[in-house]
């Protein structure tokens, strides 16, 4: 599967898919999307890269080991829960606040977003962990 066409296309498709996956992650709370879907999509981007080039190139592209993604994701999701405890409510009770972003106005921010980012990272990590391992099988 060493196709010039696929490689060239991947070079342009990869950043677009990644951007779209982040877009899906961020808008997920109000529109279709979310961490799970975004994570799967980001994983497909890396799988596409691995198919077009090879797995080690895709791993380089990822910069960090897949298990770091899983660990960081689980940590982020748990942290989102612990913030609830710190606020004096049960574990995982959501906490919300607004921050002012110049040019955009007030924006709602809450622990569910942190939780969703955790899900996003875990999904990328496990999908790639399995697919890369299978693809590297001799």
């Amino acid at each position: 599967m060493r196709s010039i066409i696929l490689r060239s296309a991947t070079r342009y498709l990869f950043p677009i898919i990644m951007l779209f996956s982040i877009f899906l992650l961020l808008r997920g709370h109000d529109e279709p999307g979310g961490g799970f879907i975004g994570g799967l999509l980001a994983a497909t981007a890396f799988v596409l890269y691995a198919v077009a080039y090879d797995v080690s190139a895709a791993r380089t592209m990822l910069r960090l080991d897949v298990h770091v993604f899983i660990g960081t994701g689980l940590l982020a999701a748990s942290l989102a829960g612990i913030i609830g405890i710190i606020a004096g409510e049960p574990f995982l009770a959501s906490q919300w606040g607004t921050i002012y972003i110049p040019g955009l106005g007030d924006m709602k921010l809450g622990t569910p977003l942190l939780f969703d980012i955790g899900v996003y990272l875990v999904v990328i990590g496990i999908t790639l962990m399995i697919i890369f391992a299978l693809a590297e099988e001799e």
Partner: protein
Amino acid sequence: MTDGVGAAFAPWNSHVAMLTAVLAGFVLAMLAPWVNAAARRATGTVLALGPLGMFIYFASLIGPISQGERIVASFGWATELGVNLSFHLDGLSLIFALLITGIGTLIVFYAGAYLEGHRDRGRFYLWLLAFLASMLGLVLADNVISLFIFWELTSITSYFLIGFDHHREKARKSALQALLVTGTGGLALLAGLILVGVTSGKWEISALLTDPAAMDAMREHALFLPIIVLLLLGAFTKSAQFPFHFWLPNAMEAPTPVSAYLHSSTMVKAGVYLMARFSPVMSGSQEWMAALVIFGGATMVIGAYLAVRQVYLKRILAYSTVSALGVLTFLLGLKAAGGTKDAAQSELALYAAKAFAVFLLAHALYKATLFLVAGTITHETGEKDVRKLGGMWRAMPITMVAAVLAALSMAGFPPFFGFISKEYLFEATLKEPGWGVLLTAAAVLSGVLFVVVSCLVAIKPFFGAKTETPQHPHEAPMPMWFGPAALGVAGLAFGLLPGLVGEPLMSPLVTALMGAPELVNVELISIFNIHFNIALMLGGIVLAVGVVLFLLHNRISRMIEPFDTLNRIGPERWYDAGLAALTWFAAAQTRVLQSGYLRVYLRITIFTAVGLLVFAMLRLENLPLLPDAPEGGWATLLYDDLYKLIAAVLILVGTYGAVHSRSRLAAIASLGIVGYGVALIYLLYGAPDLAITQFLVETLTVILFVFVFYHLPESPRFSGMATRIRDLIAAVTAGAMMTLLVLLAMNVQLRESISGYFIARSVPDGHGRNIVNVILVDFRAMDTLGEITVLAVSAAGVLALLRLRPKLLPISRRRAS
């Protein structure tokens, strides 16, 4: 967080002090390996300061407790569920806390010298101190769930301590046996404690015992008998009552300090503690009383008999401990028989409670001493067979004195503390109106055997002709004789001056046992104020007969040796047979269910699911098999839902392709079409989130399949006609069942739908308009957290399977295109 009740009983700082006293042990346990590495020879001394501090703390509370006060300290845990980390100190908890920390101090001190030079002494102290803290938590716990957690912690730490020499198979096996027996009982206990909470509405024991209405609610509940059975299962397994006694002698595989501490003076008394704790609410129950008297009495006699049949020092002591635990259970039974109905009966109850209180303390003192002495003898001589020991008094004079002091107390010689306990025991059995003679006879029999045991372990090794031993004996180092000597002297001092413990410890203990609202004042008898009565006479007879039997021990042993074959049908055989049956069953069902063939797993899964569904559907009334026709007849589907029909056709075409394709890649691609078709249907029914997920998962699945099938040989058709028909049946059954299920689901509403709630609360509570996402990351975030954790673990599993697989079979590398 404190609750109102706790705050009313004690100021805030005593809350914290109590919590610190319990948790400090765990912290100390974690530090123990480092202390061991740093302090070297002084480790035992340094670590003993911890329990010593706790002992001083609890001793300082003797004052208020003996005035009839109770201290309650509560910390919220999961208060909605009635679970709190709460502690409660009364006369019963106090004596246990003092024994645990006091004897604990001496044991920690002793073990430093006993295990001097042992490679794993740090690990030993870790578990020993963790046990100490767990045991302390157990006897102080007020909340029933906290109690259970500490209870289980003692089982687990005991497991690691029995299996300390884990390179020996016997040690591992005994540790597992103790864990399985006490763990099974622990499960029953959990159920029992939950039932206590549910039926009485009280999850704090102190609240239950001070509320007559709650106690009545529990006693009159239909589940009262199950509560008794479950609690007693927990107590009997833990406290080694017949027929669960067999794990205790085997637990002697542990190093001697552990045997002295866990398996004689503390952990095995946890069951006794539990029965004593619930004693006030159970008094008057015939079933409770009968169970305690019968099982306690049987254990008392059988344990004592088996003790004199042993030849190894520690095993003799272990069986005599079983017997002593029987005595304690038996006394609690007599106490319950007393009830509160009339004066004569309440006198019986009071005597039984006094006998229990005195025996509890006396036994802890002399039995810990004798165990430590046994450890010292074996440590110094290298011999554990009591038949080959004799004349050691010259080599080990201080140990000998400690041993003799303890033995005299155990046998019940005046003026030792054991003498007082024996008097109360006989007084109590004689007061029983119905079966008094039989019960007294049982008590006398075990008393005689106790005398033989005490002579066997403490007189035989030290006196008589000196024997040759594997090692040349010397007096043990100071830490190893200090503990036994201190405990032995205490047994004599308390006997001479019973006032030392009578008012400060025994009065609040008896008060707690009786569940009396007012302090019951206990004035113990002593040799200075005793009157001649039947009990005293019985005590004399027991001593005389016991000494004679000891002198004739060899001859009698030979006479009763044939009866030892009875062990072959004893409860330990039942345990072994049960374990073997369990392993056999596990192996058999694994062979059937987990054959290793994917097709077998699939078939089992499909047919099980279908079977369960059919069973569930048969229970439904008037199955609506076909949905009502839409308005305008079925034909409207054709032009109204044309897109859905197209998706359906797509799915069917994909399925046909997947089944009939001769190329693997084509089959995979066809499966992908099926998946996309399903995603399309989601989209048409207005579930975009589901559709996107389905599209992505389907894509990744196809890629996964390609990677896997890449390694498989060509020629996708392996199966013969018969196999294909069998698979067809499985497939059609599953498909038909799913169809039926979907049709049913459209018409049957088993429960009220929860979607309405989510739709209504999504924006105000979850700050999001995408309900699916709000449910995933907010309303049901705990589920999601669990799911991603499971995913992470399974990914690690897949990785391990792929990477750690033994490379035995070369996988064919032909392309499957």
